[in-house]
């Protein structure tokens, strides 16, 4: 086989996406490939939070690291968060669309779900989210928000996690 064929085979086997651009967070916790047409929002971002806007009107993608998370597992972390989203003072009109399911993000088992809620103008918003419990009592969340699921029903976060790399050993 020629060299480029080996490269293609390598990429297919190891699942590294060939699209998008590499992104590494300021705290050097993770690196990820961000699909094309997603624009980094420096003003919305901070060392703990990185935000990207997509081409759709309501589309946004954001990753957040949280300290002092005392949950015992990603699922417990997710359950506690969802309970608060659903409680008074949480997200208006919150509804869980897809229950928590296990998902792996570069070797760390997380909990994925989909829910909807209403914004201040009573518009329905849709969000796919993965909750993760990281070492040293850190929590992590990946979220994709939009007006609704993608037209082909595919999961953007599933694509994102394929190119995800943690900088710590796990």
């Amino acid at each position: 086989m020629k060299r480029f064929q080996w490269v293609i085979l390598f990429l297919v086997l190891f699942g590294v996406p060939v699209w998008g651009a590499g992104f590494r967070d300021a705290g050097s916790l993770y690196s990820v490939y961000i699909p094309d047409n997603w624009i980094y929002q420096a003003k919305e971002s901070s060392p703990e939070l990185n935000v990207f806007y997509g081409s759709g009107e309501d589309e946004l993608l954001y990753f957040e690291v949280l300290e002092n998370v005392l949950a015992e597992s990603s699922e417990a972390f997710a359950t506690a968060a969802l309970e608060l989203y659903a409680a008074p003072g949480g997200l208006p009109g919150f509804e869980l669309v897809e229950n928590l399911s296990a998902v792996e993000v570069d070797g760390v088992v997380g909990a994925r779900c989909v829910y909807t809620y209403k914004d201040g103008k009573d518009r329905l918003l849709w969000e796919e989210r993965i909750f993760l419990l990281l070492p040293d009592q850190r929590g992590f969340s990946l979220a994709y928000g939009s007006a609704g699921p993608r037209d082909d029903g595919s999961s953007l976060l599933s694509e994102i996690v394929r190119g995800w790399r943690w900088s710590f050993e796990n």
Partner: protein
Amino acid sequence: MKTERFAARVVLGIVLLVLFALVGTAHADVLWKDKFEQALGRGAAPQLVEEYGGEYIPPIWERMWLEEIFTRLAAQAERREIEYSLSVLNTFEQNAFALPGGYIFLTRGLLQLINGDETKLAAVLGHEIAHVEKRHGINAVLRQLSLTIAFEMGMIWLDVLPPELVRVASVTLLELLKRGWGRDAEYEADLLGQHLAVRAGFDPIGAVAMLDDLLDADPEQMPTHIFSSHPDTRNRRNRVEENIISFWSEPEPLGGKRQAEIAELGRILTQNRRTDPRSRFALSLSESPLDAGLLVYDQQRQETLVWLNDKIVQTFSWSPTGETLAVVVHDGPNSALVLLNRHGYVVEEWSPDPDQGTLTSISWSPDGKMLALGLTDAVVVTYVDCPVQIPVSGVAGGTDPIWLDDGLHFRRGELWYRSEPPTVEPVEVSNPVPRVLQRRRILSPTVIREEGSIRLTRPSLTLP
């Protein structure tokens, strides 16, 4: 008939009171008072909530932040028998209350005014907790209802809390609450509240900043009683400002080796602070000390500018983040501190009183929130966002402030001294919840086509 019954009750009350005085102890006195205080607060709380629009449940993130700060403050309280609780009232009036028994209330309007500033929130909550710690509410009610209380005391001592007494006392409590607990009680709560805030790891400047906000607030939104009941806000503000120095450590002379190091460290720091932390502007003083202005070379636009072109600049220093430039200017014998934003616009100006002498040097705190000002023979500290003067060097005087990570250093004669500000702990919510964000709407201009050309109007102010 009524008079007779009343007289009989008074006699019975006095008999019981004498009995109580004979057999009672100081401990028993505290016990019935605490029990009565709890019942009183518990009884009055629902009425207060109803009167102020019900309870407001803030969004989870704000609620967790509130609870974290409140928990830190309540942990500093000394009355272990009190279980403190916090509720937010659904009114845009700007106010806060403390009911006996540890029921603390904050209005939604005040929360808005606080606008996420933890030092201000800590000051408000500390003040309200202090009212409970000092039993201002229960004592005011007892004073007001002395005759009834004297009558009922016997029953309380017998471990009975008559519901009628609690009801009457609750009504009285709410009336008194609106008038306030009195001038002395407010002063006492201000100072104790500030003390609690510092012990809980908050900056004592919050009390000053909060009272400044109340002074500036729209009188329409202020409840009339906040000014009628609370002593003169300006006076209170000045008292809490004067109290800040009590939280700084006494200046201590440095050891021999450190004495030699400190001047050199100060020289390096001064040089570093003249460099823009964001590497855009290169600043220099005019060649002649009589020339006005600060020469600025903008490396991005590759042009030379003059900032403060009508002032003789003596020295300048960038804040650690490069947000603010502090400049000492002279005009004959007078001196002033001028704070400029990153683009050279004056945001604040301050001149020392003539008896304070001339301003000669400046040094930023490592977090960039405070500035130490070296005067002829005094070092005072001010906050960038709050105009205060904290006389750190004390009556013995001092000069040449150098603010390093381990504290504020200054010179008294040949000796260097160090004083430490109160320790501030950042608020870290335990078990936080991931945020839920929504995309910000970008206002787009309207495109108008006009005979082969395109004109863009201002962005529409109404969201799509």
